[in-house]
């Protein structure tokens, strides 16, 4: 596989085999977030254990960047506190994906972060009309 451009092997791998791709029956936080321009939609479930992120599950329909972004982030946030999660930056997520902040695909990349923060701050669902 070529390694040029945005779609590094890691991204294609996480897109084709997303980690933590499951619904959680038992969760503390859940939200559905979408980006209307792309039609990407993510539903995330977070279960806390003793103040730390214990389990994460998600389901998504969308582009490779948003799905891989959520998959990679879902692995990283295990063991974090709510404060840690609130402090996560866009640059952190872009770094995980090896993306430049000037990429036109930043919106896709940070949908995962918006979902995580939206969930723990009990924001409202914002599902995609198309999905």
């Amino acid at each position, binding site marked *: 596989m070529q390694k*040029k451009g945005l779609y590094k092997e890691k991204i294609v791998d996480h897109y084709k085999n997303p980690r933590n791709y499951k619904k959680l029956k038992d969760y503390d936080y859940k939200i559905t977030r979408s980006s209307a321009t*792309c039609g990407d939609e993510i539903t995330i479930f977070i279960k806390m254990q003793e103040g730390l992120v214990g389990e994460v599950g998600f389901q998504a329909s969308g582009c490779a960047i948003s799905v891989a972004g959520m998959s990679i982030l879902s692995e990283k946030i295990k063991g974090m506190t709510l404060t840690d999660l609130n402090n996560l930056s866009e640059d952190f997520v872009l770094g995980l994906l090896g993306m430049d902040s000037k990429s036109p695909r930043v919106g896709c990349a940070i949908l995962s972060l918006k979902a995580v923060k939206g969930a723990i701050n009990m924001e409202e669902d914002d599902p995609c009309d198309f999905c």
Partner: protein
Amino acid sequence: MEQKEIIDQFPILKRQINGKRLVYLDNAATTQKPDRVIRALRQYYEEHNANIHRGLHTLSNEATELYEGAHEKCAKFINANNMQEVIFTRNTTESINLVAYAWGRKFLKKGDVVVITGMEHHSNIVPWQMLVKELGIRLEWVPVIDEGEGKGHLDMEELKRIISVNSNHIKLVSIVHVSNVLGTVNPIKDIIDITHNAGAIAMIDAAQSAARIKLDVKALDVDFLAFSSHKMYGPTGIGVLYGKKDLLESMNPWMCGGDMIRRVSRDDYSLNELPWKFEAGTPNIADGSVLSEAIDFIEEVGFDYIQKHEKDLISYAYDNLADIDDITIFGPGGSDRLGVISFYLNGVHAHDLATLLNEDGVAVRAGHHCAMPLHLQFGIAATARISFAVYNTRDDVDVFIKSLKDAKKRFI
């Protein structure tokens, strides 16, 4: 004219993108500009720049002549009577909004019906939805046929039914000439005639047709017609609204200030004549003037050549795309459309596809193309779209198809 002579007129086509030759297939969004347009813009600012209609000096006269001359040229281009019927706006969107504000708010009332279609661009949907909320008018939608015979075309029987059921209330039928998603060419002459028989007026969104089909407002007997300079090889920042003179005269201005009045006292004002009544303030003189060059370009190449050339590209691209497994193409068949092909490659999101194609220098559009209602009908959020202009070639199509196949290999 030889194809190479046309290509050579577009400096941007020499650009490299990611080390590859630019293959620009996003012409429905905006076309590239020929050298003569770019040079004319520079020349305007270097030699003629001044405000119009308000100076007695040479530059002001020259600028006025250029700007008015572009209105006259545009009037001839669409066979309007004269420039009184040709208003310059910013774009198609503003042209349609002008009608919604200045005609709609004056002549529509609660219970009146405006008819649009399922393949409209947001610019021909939202202005009417505003009037639904504001005035209580009703919006009726002519459906687009999903499958089988007539796929991608308007359901004309349904159009006739809507018009006859609402006959006393229909005031306006506003439809797109060539769909920016499906490439469908709508039978606008028939629709305009049906509309007039019902006692209503007709507006045509010609954004995608102005650079592809000879528009003749007299032969069409259309009441309003809107298009954008930037989609017809001209500068951004200029749109056109054609309106029949009596209609335009019956309307109030929608923006007020300089240039749209004849005289102002403390107590009153009198309106300027058409088209200036609808062009308040200092207009976009430079870009408006240079629209003349874009029209000259189109007329020199000729609609016969443009259509023959683009139809060849569309059928060629359509056949090549249709050969690829897992591709869904929206809209009518390859020989039955103009301008655009929107498609979906199963397993590769349209945004990923557009990014991958860009890595090979191929510019396509991905998204809902400002036609969300139509995409709701498709049941998908984003399609990829290629669209052609007169400078594209079969070689461009080959590069695109190869890149598409490579993208597919990487993802599926």
